[in-house]
């Protein structure tokens, strides 16, 4: 029997929650996260993470990709990614 997957772990495949869409708005020239009664601008590392929450990539893969982009230590990136995903999950923007 496999171990139950912890809330945030490398093998989890995060995706945008039901009713949440990420799209580029050409009028405001910004990436926007659209959710029930909410509009949130995303940029920088937040956007880099959210745009990879496709339900296919694992957290481990997302961390690998960001570590390459930012040329940073994998452990540091992993801590940041997990903290942000936990926060987004609590806001029901991401499903883990």
């Amino acid at each position, binding site marked *: 029997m496999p171990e139950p997957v912890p809330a945030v772990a490398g093998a989890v495949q995060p995706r945008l*929650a039901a*009713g949440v869409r990420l799209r580029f708005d050409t009028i405001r020239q910004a990436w926007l996260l*659209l*959710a029930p009664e909410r*509009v949130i*601008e995303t940029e920088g590392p*937040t956007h880099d993470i959210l745009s990879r929450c496709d339900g296919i990539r694992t957290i481990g893969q997302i961390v690998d990709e960001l570590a390459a982009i930012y040329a940073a230590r994998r452990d540091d990136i992993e801590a940041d990614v997990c903290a942000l995903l936990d926060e987004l999950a*609590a*806001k*029901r923007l991401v499903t883990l």
Partner: protein
Amino acid sequence: MNVATTIPLPAPLGLLAELTHRCPLACPYCSNPLALEGRDSELSAAEWARVFREAAGLGVLQLHLSGGEPGARRDLTEITHAAHEAGLYTNLITSAIGFTRDRLAELRAAGLDHVQISIQDTEPAASDRIAGYDGAHARKLAIARTVAELGLALTINVVLHRANIARLRDLVGLAAALGAGRVELAHAQYYGWALRNRAALMPTRAQVEAATADLAAMRARYAGTLAIDAVVPDYYARRPKPCMGGWGRRSLNVTPSGRVLPCHAAETIPGLRFWSVRDRNLAEIWTRSPAFQAFRGTDWMRAPCRSCERREIDFGGCRCQAMLIAGDAAEADPACALSPLHGRMLAMAEEAAGTDDVYVYRAPAPRAPARALDGATAGEPPPP
């Protein structure tokens, strides 16, 4: 690493499309005007599609398909598809009556993003009496569950008033049990039908205070699992609500026949001229319509709003409420403690909450009037 923050945007964010004023329910706090627009005057699906493209071009991000009951439109799927094609985040605001699993699946395939279902109370008899429609509650619960099962985002909407406010906690619990990710608890807003029914709907101050405590408790209990948004009870407030986020600042409302309003109740203000999407492009209406210009910004303000440090926070409150209570839409919303009429508004609430009156259902009432509180005695509704 910063978490994203909400940004202020100059272009409108939202458009409320009242697809029809037809509705199987007859709620006594309906936000539609007393004079309902008929089916013959409704915009066609093609006209709505044009409005959606113009809205997206103007910068609108979120579209609310509302009514009346939007499900009364047989072309709702076509309309939803057009909204999605225009790039709009599409939200259906419904009573749930007239929907089936197949129809919801069809809407999901057409691009629907989010569904909001109204619930009147926790118990079927009490709920159906408010809705003026037997069997509504059971059907609403079934459709709400179906929405969640289909993987669509679900919000449960509740209008709070004297007959259901004591069950705020149970209403939130019901929303959670139905699979909602969000619940909207809105105290009745006293315009149109709700104003006519104010005496039957107004809660007491003690009820409002208990509800405020209940709300805080529910927010703590459901933190991280259920978002709870609340609309304050104006009559017992000290600060006015920032109505519509400011007049003509964030959103537009299009009536079934295509009249474009700054808010759904704006037609209650005499003298405003509304333009129609049948005659003009939405961008022109947004920027130049006399109705939108009337109370935009802060230039129209008088004392005490004009010099108030909160004038860009609450925008003087609600223009329609100023019209109704102060008799002039350019006055401060009497919900504000700085308004000379604030005490009178509170007295109106306390007087209304002390009476036990019958509901005047949204016409035509589908059945005999029921007692607002105990359902014990049927009586004739008061004349309009």
